[in-house]
């Protein structure tokens, strides 16, 4: 069956309607003309049409932009390379016994700090950066961070030592770049504080553009996050049914976990004992949760413990001592000033805020002099961020310790460099400007403790990952690329292609469900 409908003339509003059949090559049938009178028609086949070679016409391949690493505006088509860099005539904050050296040159070669001194001759091909009037420091180390991951809290149970932050690193996180711009080069990515024994942490270097494995700080000791107090006993949850419900219970969770770990270790030893030929070994179930706890008892894994209140601080140290190991670090530790002597006796390091408090009941006793007091007692003290935004300005957080506690500038600066390096057991690689250490350095426009100080270059392993001049150029390029793509999308719309409403690109930011983090309009804060 065929149907033919057409207007009598170009502008005709009325149509002639024909309906008929195909018979061989010809068509015939009847219809109705514009006046409503019946008509008959036929169509005699004359010839085939010369096919318009629509399908044969090759459209030019679409022009698309480049893949950049990471895949956002601040990515690059090629990753930056390791360079030989000579920084000349800078004020060098060594974070070592040499202190602050004026008018000093530092040579970075093969990813290491090769030479420190006056009038160093630049090797052939070296990039020379004039440091006159500028300050060179080791890269900042953030002991407590939650950036660059795809999940942060496994809150499903009270003991989750089997989970590992290192399993879900996210090297695309823009916070890596933002923190490079604030002089951070190493971050300790902690599990959240939803449970007593949280997950295994991971130490990363802020290598912008690499993949998740390459983000990892090679050879660093394994750590694990513990937490105490309100979060883990779920104080705000009226319907909590997960043990523990009190601070006493928290202590018992620890006792129970390590008791089970002891039994597990004994069973493992039994299963792996040398035996006579043919004698079957007992069946042993590998338990990832207890594996990690056994590592702790054998000092192969180290604890960073979220803590606020003096009672829980002391009780946790007692549990550790009972099982023959140490707590490596108390983090937050806002009441640390009350029990600094006890912590000194235990041999624990502390990592705290400069002045972040009163976000919940258990932090009402916090004081601004905490870090300074703990340092005076002889503890290794670090200042950390626990916040993606604050980590951009940890230099200013360190400066506050000068203001409140009267700590010297040099010592305050150590609280964000060599001190956290030491508590993370990487003081031989990073944390100070010393020959042989990793070339992780920051060139500041000013005294790094000044609020006017900006990072001009942030260098990791001798690779420039942040360059303020390049950054400004990149902002221009981003505008241009955005505009190109917007125009292209508008072109699609004009061409009648389907479009979807513009959707805001939300950034998911993880944090440890501890403070009231608010990171702005385009950020979803995730626990």
């Amino acid at each position, binding site marked *: 069956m065929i149907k033919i409908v057409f207007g009598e003339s170009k502008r005709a509003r009325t149509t002639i309607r024909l309906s008929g059949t*195909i018979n061989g090559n010809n068509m015939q049938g009847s219809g109705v003309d514009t006046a409503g009178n019946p008509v008959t028609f036929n169509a005699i086949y004359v010839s085939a049409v010369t096919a318009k070679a629509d399908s044969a016409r090759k459209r030019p391949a679409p022009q698309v932009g480049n893949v950049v690493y990471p*895949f956002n505006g601040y990515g690059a088509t090629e990753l930056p390379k390791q360079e030989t860099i000579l920084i000349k005539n800078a004020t060098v904050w060594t974070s070592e016994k040499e202190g602050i050296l004026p008018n000093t040159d530092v040579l970075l070669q093969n990813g290491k700090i090769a030479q420190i001194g006056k009038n160093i001759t630049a090797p052939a091909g070296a990039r020379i950066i004039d440091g006159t009037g500028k300050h060179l420091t080791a890269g900042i180390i953030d002991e407590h961070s939650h950036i660059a991951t*795809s999940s942060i809290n496994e809150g499903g149970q009270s003991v989750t030592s089997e989970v590992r932050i290192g399993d879900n690193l996210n090297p695309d996180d823009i916070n890596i770049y933002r923190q490079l711009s604030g002089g951070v080069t190493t971050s300790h990515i902690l599990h959240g504080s939803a449970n007593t024994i949280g997950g295994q942490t991971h130490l990363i270097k802020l290598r912008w553009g690499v993949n998740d494995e390459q983000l990892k700080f090679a050879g660093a000791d394994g750590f694990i996050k513990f937490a105490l107090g309100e979060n883990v006993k779920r104080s705000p949850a009226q319907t909590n049914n997960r043990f523990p419900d009190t601070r006493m219970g928290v202590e018992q969770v620890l006792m129970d976990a390590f008791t089970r770990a002891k039994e597990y270790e004994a069973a493992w030893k039994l299963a792996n004992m040398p035996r006579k030929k043919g004698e079957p070994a007992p069946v042993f179930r590998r338990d990832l949760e207890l594996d990690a706890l056994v590592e702790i008892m054998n000092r192969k894994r180290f604890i960073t413990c979220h803590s606020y209140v003096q009672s829980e601080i002391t009780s946790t140290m007692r549990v550790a001592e009972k099982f023959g190991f140490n707590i490596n670090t108390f983090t937050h530790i806002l009441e640390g000033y009350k029990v600094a002597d006890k912590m000194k006796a235990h041999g624990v390091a502390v990592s705290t805020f400069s002045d972040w408090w009163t976000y919940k009941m258990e932090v009402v006793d916090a004081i601004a002099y905490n870090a300074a007091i703990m340092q005076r007692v002889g503890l290794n003290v670090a200042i950390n961020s626990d916040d993606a935004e604050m980590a951009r300005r940890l230099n200013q957080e360190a400066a506050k310790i000068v203001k409140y506690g009267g700590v010297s500038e040099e010592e305050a600066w150590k609280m964000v460099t060599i001190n956290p390096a030491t508590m993370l057991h990487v003081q031989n690689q990073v944390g100070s400007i010393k020959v042989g250490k990793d070339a992780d350095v920051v060139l500041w426009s000013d005294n790094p403790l000044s609020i006017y100080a900006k990072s001009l270059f942030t260098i990791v392993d001798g690779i420039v990952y942040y360059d303020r001049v390049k950054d400004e150029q990149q902002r221009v390029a981003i505008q241009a690329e955005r505009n190109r793509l917007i125009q292209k999308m508008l072109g699609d719309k004009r061409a009648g292609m389907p479009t979807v409403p513009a959707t805001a690109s939300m950034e998911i930011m993880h944090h440890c469900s501890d403070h009231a983090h608010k990171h702005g309009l385009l950020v979803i804060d995730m626990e």
Partner: protein
Amino acid sequence: MKRWKLLLLSCSWAFVVQAQNTFPVNGVADNRSGYYALTNATIVTQPGTTLTGATLVIKDGRVVAVGNGVTVPKEAVVIDCKGKYIYPSFVDAYSDYGVQQPQRQQGQFNFFAAAQLTSNTKGAFGWNQAIKADANAGSIFTVDEAKARQLRESGFGVVSTHIKDGIVRGTGAVVTLASERDNKVIVKEKATAHYSFSKGTSTQSYPSSLMGSIALLRQTYYDAAWYKSAPKTEGVNMSLQAFNGIQGLPQIFDIIERGADHTTKWNALRADRIGDEFGVQYILKASGYEYQRIQDMKATNAAFILHLNFPQAMDVEDPNDARFVSLADMKHWEMAPSQPAAFEKAGIPFCISATELRDTKQFLAQLRKAIEYGLSEQKALEAITTAPAAMLQVSNEVGSIAVGKWANFLVTNGPLFAEKTTILQNWVQGNKYAVKEDVWNNYDGLYNLTVNGNAVQKPTNSKLKTAPPIYLGKTPLVLSGLAMAK
């Protein structure tokens, strides 16, 4: 003589077996053999092999003969396919066709809610509700004609279907899209084993994070290995038992956790690392963002299942709306269609699935778009025929047109990937399904049209004495600007 008789006997026996089944017939039995010969066709038996003027003979749902110079059996119904192309029907390695999917009630960690610390699943199963190793798509599969038609009209003949729920999702079945009894369409009842990072409908608190899902899956591998020794302390654990039972199958890992975004591509590496730890090479179902790290994808040594859900342009007319769209999202809109080409260029094995598409009918259009963005036609055809068949280990049954395999093929009116080509018919297990048969014959041409004896012509030609023929083509014909000759 004796031997001859024996041969005859075995032949007749084979014939009887083919017609037999357990299902009683209410009425008169109607066992037709579906004996067809499609002649004069351009047959692409598999990617890279094209026969022109060839004949395809099918019977009892299977290919009996294919090639040039094939004798057309006199019992067969002959279909002249002059000018037509025949391709193997597509195979989709990742589908949920005919399998009821549990409704998702994603239980994310909620700080304020009561915890569910044990599994809600009744029975002698494992401790975690998200380990559904015992799930078996084949046992709940049922033909879904409405959905089958959609898929057939997009060119598919066979899909691998499973229950998309949980971290371990049990086994998937390979089924055809014929509208036959369920028994007849299952090609392989337990064909694949499935995994993901998403706990799906599990209401249990653990795991509440991606790293928790990873830890749970790792622990399950250790537990399952331990369970092989029948530990008395455990009792019967049907989850671990089932987990051990599915290890020999192709292992398919869906890397999309909740929705896909720029970071989901890293899940490919995360899944692959779990596989490395336990000597398993997963087939990875991609998120669509993998082209952003193609060398890392290659390093997994995995084969991938790609989808064609390319984002549509956003309406960015309002500058304030546009301001909130990240450059990464805009770049992805531009580059997403180049994902299959990027995999081809990197030499990573892959197949292409209709999964994730908003509308299955868009499949071929989207595939053509991928070709426009650099995917070769040969690779495109492989990715929807031989590659998925090999991945599912059913190459001996489907994926190409060859003697003995299921008669699953498409009849088209042109080369498959040409823009104007239409699928006319899709044959599945020897059953013909019309897709768009009304364009089988092409009457496009120039005609002398007369109405009541008066010639119809274009007005511009109205001064000519004899009206030139006018173009008639495509049904229904709607023309404008014509005039009756005066």
